């Protein structure tokens, strides 16, 4: 027997706020969480990024827990999960509730000696960090940790959906995000992938991405709710490990599989929440994939101008914002987009668009040539 899967509750912790509502309000107001900032470390890198301010983070964490023995990454996860779990009323301690953590680097700042003197060195290992987070919420199941580059967040939802659909669990709490520090910033900078200014997805003058901290949590459940997760899938370009295939064929495979999985067709899709990292190659590849599938006339946006690329958090945060779109009938503008800069006539939203939105397609692609697609909407 297969169960239908619903999105019960969600939460976002980012520079735009510590609740989904605050984040969506700021997004609709055109406010970005990106700013020029200096990354602490040997090089004091100056980047345009979305960093959660430490003061508010520690204050907010202190409100929910008197135990300070958690890393920055763990605190951001716990803070993101806390409100979603308590609002949903889901029993996180139940064996029928699974926990998924989606992250590319977890506690990578623990590579620096003495970064956290009171925290066991073992927490550098992703599963150990995930276990600490799961234990905070009294979960005794082994958390599922997904670390699949930039599609991790979408795959967290796809994986969680399957775990409920096929009956292993009744609820899944999925949280994802990445801290932005010297390791990640210098790495992306070595690829010349970073923009010094807020990024411009799909724009003619786009020069690259910004990194951002944004931790999204969804509580998936077999208990009916207003938003349903219809289907999802992943694929690989099988072409190049650090650049997308030029013809978008890998992403098309993922989108087609997601459509089949969901029982929806291209005609059912009202809006596409794209990956839109604002690198020259990604946006062009996505435009080709969407256009060749007949999605060019559907409103499409990228949220990377508000949050930056939140890596392990991207698929979750952007899905959550898009569920607000479904509920409120408002598609946020693609911040940074002014002049059409991809070779296909996709319909990039440049101002908030009021439109009844029932079904959303979310896409993501990442290093290693991976792609993922998710379809969700009104139940």
């Amino acid at each position, binding site marked *: 027997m297969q169960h239908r899967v619903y999105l019960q509750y969600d939460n976002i912790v980012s520079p735009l706020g510590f609740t989904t509502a605050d984040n969506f309000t700021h997004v609709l107001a055109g406010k970005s969480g990106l700013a020029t900032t200096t990354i602490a470390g040997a090089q004091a890198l100056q980047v345009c990024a979305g960093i959660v301010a430490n003061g508010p983070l520690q204050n907010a964490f202190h409100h929910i827990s008197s135990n300070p023995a958690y890393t920055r990454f763990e605190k951001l996860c716990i803070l993101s999960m806390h409100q979603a779990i308590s609002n949903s009323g889901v029993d996180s301690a139940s064996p029928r509730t699974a926990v998924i953590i989606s992250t590319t*680097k977890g506690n990578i700042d623990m590579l620096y000696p003495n970064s956290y003197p009171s925290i066991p060195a073992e927490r550098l290992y992703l599963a150990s960090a995930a276990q600490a987070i799961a234990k905070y919420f009294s979960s005794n199941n082994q958390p599922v940790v997904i*670390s699949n580059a930039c599609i991790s967040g979408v795959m967290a939802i796809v*994986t969680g959906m399957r775990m409920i659909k096929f009956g292993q669990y009744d609820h899944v709490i999925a949280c994802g995000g990445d801290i932005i520090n010297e*390791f990640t910033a210098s790495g992306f*900078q070595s690829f010349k992938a970073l923009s010094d200014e807020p990024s411009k997805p799909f724009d003619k003058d786009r020069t690259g991405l910004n990194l951002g901290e944004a931790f999204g949590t969804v509580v998936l459940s077999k208990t009916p709710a207003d938003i349903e997760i219809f289907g999802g899938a992943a694929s690989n370009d099988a072409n190049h490990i650090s650049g997308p295939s030029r013809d978008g064929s890998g992403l098309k495979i993922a989108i087609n599989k997601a459509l089949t999985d969901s029982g929806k067709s291209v005609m059912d899709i009202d809006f596409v929440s794209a990956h839109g990292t604002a690198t020259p190659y990604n946006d062009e590849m996505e435009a080709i994939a969407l256009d060749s599938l007949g999605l060019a006339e559907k409103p499409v946006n990228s949220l990377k101008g508000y949050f930056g690329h939140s890596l392990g958090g991207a698929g979750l945060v952007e899905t959550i914002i898009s569920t607000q779109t479904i509920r409120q009938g408002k598609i946020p503008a693609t911040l940074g987009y002014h002049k059409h800069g991809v070779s296909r006539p996709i319909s990039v939203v440049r101002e908030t668009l009021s439109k009844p939105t029932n079904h959303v397609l979310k896409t993501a692609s990442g290093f290693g040539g991976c792609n993922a697609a998710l379809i969700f909407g009104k139940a």
Partner: protein
Amino acid sequence: MSTQLTISKFVRMNNAGLWLNGEPVLTQPTGEIKAYLQQLYSQLGVQYPKFYKMDSLCQLAYIGAQLLLKDDSITNLYASSEIGAVFANKASSLDTDRRFHETICDSEAYFPSPAVFVYTLPSIMSGEIAISEGIKGENNFLVAAEFNPHQQVEYLTNLFATKQVQACVAGWVELDFENFDVLMYIVEEQTTGIQLSTIELKQLYTAKF
């Protein structure tokens, strides 16, 4: 005849040996891992210069995948988009993370390289195998505290239930310092064979061949 998910082929590699379907193959492990991986590559007799760009973790995964897929039996039988690559380990990409960290932590010797940074993601191994074998289906990477057969079986069972793949290269590919630990296998729906189950995976993992 009804089919079930089976482990149709498996590779076991660790510091004690290298076995394909339970039989020792190629050279048994000697000394330092980097040299051992180079040795295995030359013994495979394939021409794949990209091997030399890979980090040790991806080289390890590549060797395992070659042993499983070199005869093209899987890639001839199934469409490329119907074959998945789903792996797991404990240390993620820490082997390369540590190396990358060394290139950035000293302001006097700061030389981050994209050729190294790209390998600071464990899922790159799926990409490397996808490219060398032309595999375009499901892609995912899980990180666990230890070899977790239950988690692997749960994931793969759900994956096949979606009917999005007909075969999957899967398994545990772990490298941390000089310890390497691999149980890589192919899953297909077949009428006979080793059933994909927690007990069977555990037995393959702990067996002394």
